């Protein structure tokens, strides 16, 4: 498993793809942070994280599209599958490599918050007395980053699974974008209103189901700095289920 992990990590950085991902992600998150906080004169990071999640619709597939699709196309999967490694080892090695890069990029993007703290400190120094908190709320930021990482793990697992289904990287990417977009945008349905301000989806059960399935709705507790154990389980389950399905895809192909 470790050899595959190492190989995947290497492959991100000897191909342009790792750099493209990192570059795009860091630039985008920096710009986003700039616009949602500094330009908007706000210490709240809520909208920053919200928009960041939309960026993942495009960014995560970049990480995951080639994981299995490329191996299958180049027939190198035969090497892995006939080597003394378990299927789980192969899938985990690949998943962890993508996740590591993702984790690194998210942690790097935390540099974006430094200006907020600097501004906050400066403002606090300028005021004598204040009843409200000035500057960013560390608990919210930590909670949100944590949730973003979990969410990313789930998305990467989905991308990994889709990559294992096809041998065409491009179609893997497109399908992954579609699936992740659907998961993210689903929540917006609940917010839709018609001209009179009435909710379009008025049926409570449907709203409940959408809310339950949506990845975004789970996010909100973390973004208030609350540790939501249910959401944690939810994200981990998605990750686990899709990794398990990936293993099953390969297992089934052997028997097919």
């Amino acid at each position, binding site marked *: 498993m*470790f*050899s*595959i992990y*190492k*190989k995947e990590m*290497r*492959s991100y950085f*000897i*191909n342009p793809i790792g750099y493209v991902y990192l570059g795009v992600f860091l630039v985008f998150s920096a710009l986003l942070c700039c616009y949602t906080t500094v330009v908007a004169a706000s210490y709240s990071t809520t909208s920053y994280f919200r928009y960041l999640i939309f960026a993942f619709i495009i960014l995560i597939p970049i990480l995951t599209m080639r994981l299995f699709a490329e191996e299958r196309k*180049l*027939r*190198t*999967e*035969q*090497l*892995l*599958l*006939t*080597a*003394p*490694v*378990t299927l789980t080892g192969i899938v985990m090695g690949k998943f962890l490599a993508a996740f590591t890069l993702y984790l690194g990029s998210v942690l790097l993007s935390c540099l974006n918050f430094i200006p907020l703290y600097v501004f906050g400190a400066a403002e606090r120094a300028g005021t004598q007395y204040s009843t409200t908190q000035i500057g960013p709320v560390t608990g919210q930021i930590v909670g949100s980053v944590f949730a973003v990482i979990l969410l990313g793990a789930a998305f990467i697992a989905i991308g990994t699974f889709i990559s294992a289904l096809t041998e065409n990287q491009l179609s893997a990417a497109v399908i992954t974008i579609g699936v992740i977009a659907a998961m993210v945008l689903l929540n917006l349905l609940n917010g839709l209103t018609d001209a009179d301000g009435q909710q379009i989806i008025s049926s409570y059960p449907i709203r409940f189901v959408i809310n339950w399935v949506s990845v975004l709705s789970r996010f909100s507790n973390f973004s208030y700095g609350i540790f939501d154990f249910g959401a944690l389980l939810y994200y981990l389950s998605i990750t686990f289920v899709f990794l398990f399905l990936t293993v099953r895809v390969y297992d089934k192909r*052997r*028997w*097919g």
Partner: protein
Amino acid sequence: MQSMIKIEHLIKNYGTNCAVDDISFEVESGEIVGFLGPNGAGKSTTMNVLTGYLSSTSGKVSVGGIDILEDPLGAKRKIGYLPEQPPLYLDMTVKEYLEFNYELKGCTMDRARHLSEICEVVKIQDVYNRLIRNLSKGYRQRVGIAQALVGNPDVIIFDEPTVGLDPKQIIEIRNLIRTLGKNHTVILSTHILQEVQAVCDRIIIINKGKIVADEKTENISRIVENSRRFHVKVSGPQKEVLTLLRGMSGIAYADVLAERDGDAYTYLVESEQGVDVRKKLFFELASHGWPMVGLEPQGMNLEDIFITVVDQSSMGTVEREREKRVVRRGAGRGRTTLEASLANELVDEAAEKRASQSSIGFGSSGEDGGPSDEDIGLVPKGQGKESGKEED
């Protein structure tokens, strides 16, 4: 000797399509076995099952005494596999690639030494630090072979290792495989008959998912080399030469082929059964003052061999005795009658010999009711120049 690879009643279906149909054989330690068959015969499927890439529908496969289903990792550790298309990561250098394989297979020996030994064997030292993407096909193939050797596995499996190589490379790879055969058990699949003849101790012929022959190489070689058809190139007036050829005793069939080389024409000559007409032909032509400028025996091709061995395996000996003339003559199966009849005669002859020597116990595979007779079978007399294949 302990058998290194044991396959019992292996069946593999793809949906309703049966790719491998009840195959059983054993390979002993240190043997080089050639797996011969036309495209789509089930060679690759069998190898893929053997290496654990595919699962069998039913049947038992064990490598070095380890069942591939019970302990897949243990069995895989004993196998080095070069698939049909070498599984190379084009964005790695040869060094990185081999090191990756070394780690993947969880080897524990001294890495630098082990890898440099392998590179020496397959002769890729001079491209060691180059990107695989930039290597030629021959070198890529060798890197693929090197990959199979990493970890020094007991069994090495090559799936069509010489496809797409130039003749010089083919010879090098074959020599390499021979060398490997000294310390490893090697299974090699190909659809080129000469290849297995040159390399292997034993040949397993497979067709439509079934083993149709499992023979020592010499035996098969003899069938192949015992051709009675020649291309003779004679420099002389076409018509007269042809008349002479047709009139000669010992020649069953003669015709002129379209090829022309100066004033020399090429003739197809088929001798009568059991007669070596070559010397006679030479003197005869010489006495007329028509120099023979070329004589080329026409070996049987794979198809011909299939006709012989397939037919042989599909009928019991006794039945064959009875039915051979009736059934076989008609069964041209779309091939030229010449080829068909040639194949038939070879089988008939073998059957007669077999009948006369009746049963002598042999047991290479014994699976297909038959053609494992070491020496009696399949070999018309004469001319078999002992085929020069060494026995290890």
